[in-house]
């Protein structure tokens, strides 16, 4: 589960972290990947094909939603993507083919065994992490920085803002689809609410708490936020309260997330031990 969440968080990191496009509906793509994988698995297709199909379908729909990000900006985009999330859940709920409210159950196993599946997820986590770091280092990452900072100025410096946004959406949503596919084989039972607004928010909070755009920060925040409910099991009644409060306090007192916080600590340590004023 931690592994799947890391893939998810890093997939959103490509869109929100690098390219600066806030998405409040990321769980929809996770869901599209999951439903596509689940349906194909049930008709007997093998795992590599189902995962690939889920990834491609999610990325394709993501590309279409990405087109909307060319029309609307900032807060408008945040709400539009939130709408996409609700629309997805709304459609799935009313479709008998997709299992309606009851979801899809009795999904065949991955056929890899517990350890084998764990390794598979791990391999994907490593690949996605490397992909993230690679994008950040490349000129694409440089252009993303510019788009995230100031679209209009980026345009005046010859950056094709639309193409970069679409690239971010396509990559990010495809990886979310992959995470969805893996989740299907992990849970073997899915319902629409697994992919609702709460999930979108959890993904976004992993990215934001980690520090928007920082791969290491997002990784550690995802591990902490996913495992936290386990740590706090003795106070299970307060689990969500602590979660909400944590989100709030991180944003209120360390808006750069954990990565920003660590960087600030590092800088102040250096300047106090350094030459001084």
């Amino acid at each position, binding site marked *: 589960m931690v592994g799947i969440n890391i893939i998810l968080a890093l997939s959103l990191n490509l869109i929100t972290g690098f390219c600066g496009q806030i998405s409040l509906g990321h769980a929809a793509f996770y869901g599209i990947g999951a439903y596509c994988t689940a349906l194909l698995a049930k008709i007997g297709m093998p795992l590599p094909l189902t995962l690939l199909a889920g990834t491609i379908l999610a990325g394709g729909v993501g590309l279409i939603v990405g087109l909307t990000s060319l029309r609307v900006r900032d807060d408008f985009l945040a709400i539009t993507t939130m709408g996409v999330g609700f629309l997805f859940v709304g459609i799935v709920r009313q479709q008998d083919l997709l299992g309606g409210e009851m979801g899809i159950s009795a999904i065949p196993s991955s056929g890899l065994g517990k350890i084998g599946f764990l390794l598979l997820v791990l391999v994907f986590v490593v690949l996605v992490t490397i992909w993230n770091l690679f994008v950040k280092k*490349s*000129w694409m990452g440089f252009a993303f*920085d510019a788009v*995230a900072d*100031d679209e209009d100025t980026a*345009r*005046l*410096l*010859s950056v*094709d803002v639309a193409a970069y946004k679409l690239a971010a959406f396509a990559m990010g949503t495809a990886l979310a689809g992959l995470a969805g596919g893996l989740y299907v084989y992990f849970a073997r039972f899915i319902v629409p609410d697994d992919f609702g607004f709460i999930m979108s928010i959890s993904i976004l909070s992993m990215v934001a708490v980690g520090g928007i755009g920082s791969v290491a920060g997002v990784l550690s925040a995802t591990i902490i936020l996913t495992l936290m409910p386990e740590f706090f099991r003795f106070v299970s009644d307060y689990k969500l309260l602590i979660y909400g409060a944590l989100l709030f306090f991180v944003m209120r007192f360390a808006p750069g997330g954990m990565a920003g916080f660590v960087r600030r600590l590092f800088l102040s340590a250096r300047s106090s031990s350094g030459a001084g004023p």
Partner: protein
Amino acid sequence: MTALLEIQDVGVQFGGVRALTNVGFSVATGEFLSLIGPNGAGKTTLVRGITGVIRLQQGRIVFAGRDISAWPVHRRIRAGLAMTHQIVRPFHSMTVLDNVALPAGHENIGNVVKALLRLNRSPARKKALELLSLVEIVDVAHQSVRGLPLGVVKRLELARALALEPQLLLLDEPLAGLNSQEAARLADMITGINRQGVTIMMIEHNLGEVLRVSRRLVVLDNGRKIADGDPDTVMADPVVRSAYVGKEKQDAAP
């Protein structure tokens, strides 16, 4: 001399307000042209129309023989235009160096897929350092943009535009907000750039510097071109004088 830029019968409206009406002139390769006129005359609108930041309702922009009126901004920039903002807008999240390195490596970001395959940023940074020393701010190269004085950021904007290796450089009030010494120094720098073959079209209110450095003036008033020619003739033109006198009265009022 051949015309590098032709502005043909351009008109722009915002809501019901006409910002530009039937403006037309052409800019020859190698010229240093200043666009002047009272506040609200439509100068910035015209420059933004040339770069494509705003859309024209009427008329055409022809650059290097090609009609670019329908092109998106980034394509016009790649064709050889560059522009600096009136109000400086550096990338706040980057260092001074990277602000320039991004456009300096513009050939790396032309294609999204290729951009992903290119990892080496050092040639662009090297080029950026050269440009920063050209505008004499190389000593702040590795600082964050935040908190830098306006004079430095204005030079940064200039270096950033130059990094695009433009044929035509559009400058929107590059001297505004600088003291007279800084302004003169920057104006000299711009003249130097012009001597190296970059055509310049500059919006500027600092008439002293404008008359010192530019070789041609175009005057806009109320969205219309009212004069066009060499500086002495234009400044002697009674129409221009009355437009400016009117403006001075307005400025004195509050």
